[in-house]
């Protein structure tokens, strides 16, 4: 099993971690305002402020309230949720390649949605969201059950292998349907790319409770997760009831990742990469990794979404496809300089 890249775990970070968190929140706020203001119609911050406090019905204010705010809020929520889910997943499996996708969540959601389009002919984002959530939950529970049936119970290796196998199975079924039915492919390929555009605030509000509960659970689990990431034996030796921690972690991942895929479609990358980026700064302590991951994930998705709007105006790209293009070079750069072993 590979180890997680570690550099500054024993050294003092350049900025104290608490202060960094506040700076991060500030940066997040700036990105959020930029995301609300920037676009095909550029709107200045003052109008943005007025639209929220003193709505007067002008076009600009209408754009902000009905299009930009829901979109930015979606990006913010999805980014932080997926990043935190990814961090938990990597801590749980002690595998740097793990992301929420490994639990089969994205694949399960995609199959459920593609199946609903193929057999039931559903077309609205709301129906997609329902099926996505259902598919995600079934997938994650199945993978967990299969993983715990393996030799030695729910070891990281069993979970990882069960997840990878299940994911391959489910995404093959999805591709199979898409090959058999060109109509379904036409209908669903944009959703499959992952996007935060055109999401209704109603939809977001419906999913919000899942995300909120998942996030609170995750942030409370930092200490236990750090212990568990040292290895099962050590965690048990320190008196931890590892089975409970694993179940709590799973519930939190299902809520966070399932909720996000329901809103935005499968968005990869954030869950895989953000925990690594965060670890370069804060080390291996999940009490810090989790809140930092939430902030960095949100910032990354907001920036990528701005990029998705601006690259080929007035056309738009799905943010799920833009993000790797923007984020991966930065990630490779970090890897080159930070991973010494």
């Amino acid at each position: 099993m590979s180890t997680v890249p570690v550099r500054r775990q024993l050294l003092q970070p350049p900025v104290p971690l608490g202060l960094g968190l506040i700076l991060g929140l500030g940066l997040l706020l700036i990105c959020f305002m930029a995301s609300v203001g920037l676009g095909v119609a550029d709107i200045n911050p003052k109008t943005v402020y007025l639209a929220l406090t003193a709505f007067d019905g002008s076009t600009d204010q209408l754009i902000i309230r009905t299009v930009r705010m829901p979109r930015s809020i979606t990006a913010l929520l999805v980014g932080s949720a997926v990043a935190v889910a990814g961090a938990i997943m990597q801590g749980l499996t002690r595998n740097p390649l793990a992301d929420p996708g490994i639990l089969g969540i994205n694949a399960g959601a995609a199959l459920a949605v593609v199946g609903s389009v193929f057999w039931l002919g559903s077309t609205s984002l709301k129906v997609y969201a329902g099926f996505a959530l259902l598919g995600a939950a079934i997938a994650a529970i199945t993978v967990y059950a299969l993983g715990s049936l393996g030799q030695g119970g729910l070891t990281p290796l069993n979970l990882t292998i069960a997840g990878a196998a299940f994911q391959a199975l489910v995404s093959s079924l999805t591709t199979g349907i898409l090959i058999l039915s060109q109509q379904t492919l036409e209908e669903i390929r944009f959703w499959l790319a992952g996007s935060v555009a055109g999401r209704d605030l109603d939809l977001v509000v419906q999913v919000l409770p899942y995300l909120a509960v998942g996030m609170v659970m995750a942030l409370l689990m930092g200490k236990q997760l750090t212990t568990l990431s040292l290895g099962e034996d050590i965690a048990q030796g320190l008196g931890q009831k590892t089975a409970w921690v694993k179940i709590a972690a799973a519930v939190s991942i299902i809520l966070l990742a399932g909720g996000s895929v329901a809103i935005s479609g499968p968005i990869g990358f954030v869950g895989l990469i953000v925990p690594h980026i965060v670890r370069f700064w804060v080390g291996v302590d999940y009490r810090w990794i989790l809140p930092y991951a939430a902030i960095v994930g949100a910032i990354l998705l907001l920036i990528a979404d701005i990029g998705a709007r601006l690259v080929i105006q007035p056309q738009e790209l799905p943010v799920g496809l833009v993000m790797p293009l923007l984020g991966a070079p930065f990630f490779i750069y970090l890897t080159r300089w930070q991973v010494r072993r």
Partner: protein
Amino acid sequence: MKQWLVVRPPQVPISFHLDRRVPSILLCLILATLVAMVLSVGQGEYPVPPLDVIKTALGLETNNPDFDFIVMTLRLPRTLVAWGVGMGLAIAGTITQGITRNPLASPGIIGVNAGASLAAVTLIVLYPDLPIALIPWAAFGGALTVAVLIYLLAWQGGSSPVRLILVGVGCSLIAGSLTNLMVTFGNIYNVSQALVWLAGSVYGRSWEQLTVFLPWLSGFGLLSLLMSRELNALQLGDEVARSLGSRLELQRSLLLLSSVALAGSSVATAGSIGFVGLMAPHLGRQLVGPSHEGLLPVAALTGGFVVVVADLLGRLLFAPIELPCGIITAIVGAPYFLYVLIRDRNS
């Protein structure tokens, strides 16, 4: 009973240290594959009885002159390609998992699939007028380019498995999202074609493709087998391997090279058939344990068998519509894989 067999011919300076189970399991796998091949060649719109398949393949007379054309020209090369591709991917997967010491690693990790897919999909979606014969070469070029890029980007005064994995993930993501951009925005008819390629299929492969692919498979397959002892050492960790006398960088790059060549040529021949490279090594380890001298051939034959069976099923399940075998490998392979995982829980 001894657990190990040692093969050490006095004339040749090599030695193999095999698990005792290896020979019998190899024999079983070969027999199973032969049966699957005969069934696969016999199956189709114009069925050929198994006995006639064997006769025709061996060049004996049968009482139907059509059989020769059907078996030798249409079906046999296709099945052999499936077998070879499966072996290539399985060996490549075993090497990657050995080098990176990560059970999730598959040839995809070194960017081979992502690079090949990007090149092939670009050709299919953006330049549909170019001849189809170009696709394998483009795919191979793409695979090689991305793999070399990953190795160079991960090089920082020496290579490291973790850096290799992370840089590989980054590069694959970039190539993957470019591919997806084309899938999302391309002409729907071309995208459908691209999906079949992306799923991996041996449809319409002929002797020509087989003769191009065979030298890669045999050459680098042999090299991998000769280096299996080094792979055993590398798997113990960099420090241990070095203290056992491994010339770490040289061996790692040679092994990576064969993995890239095997996976790259397989993907170029049959599209990106997934899951075999990930699954075959695990199945092999369940059968004969982790020592690579025995594991490599066993995993290779397992991979070959799986793809042959997948191709057969892909033609049978929704006949007359044909599903690409890359889809079936996972649909058939994953449940079996999970079954093996569960079966061994009490051992």
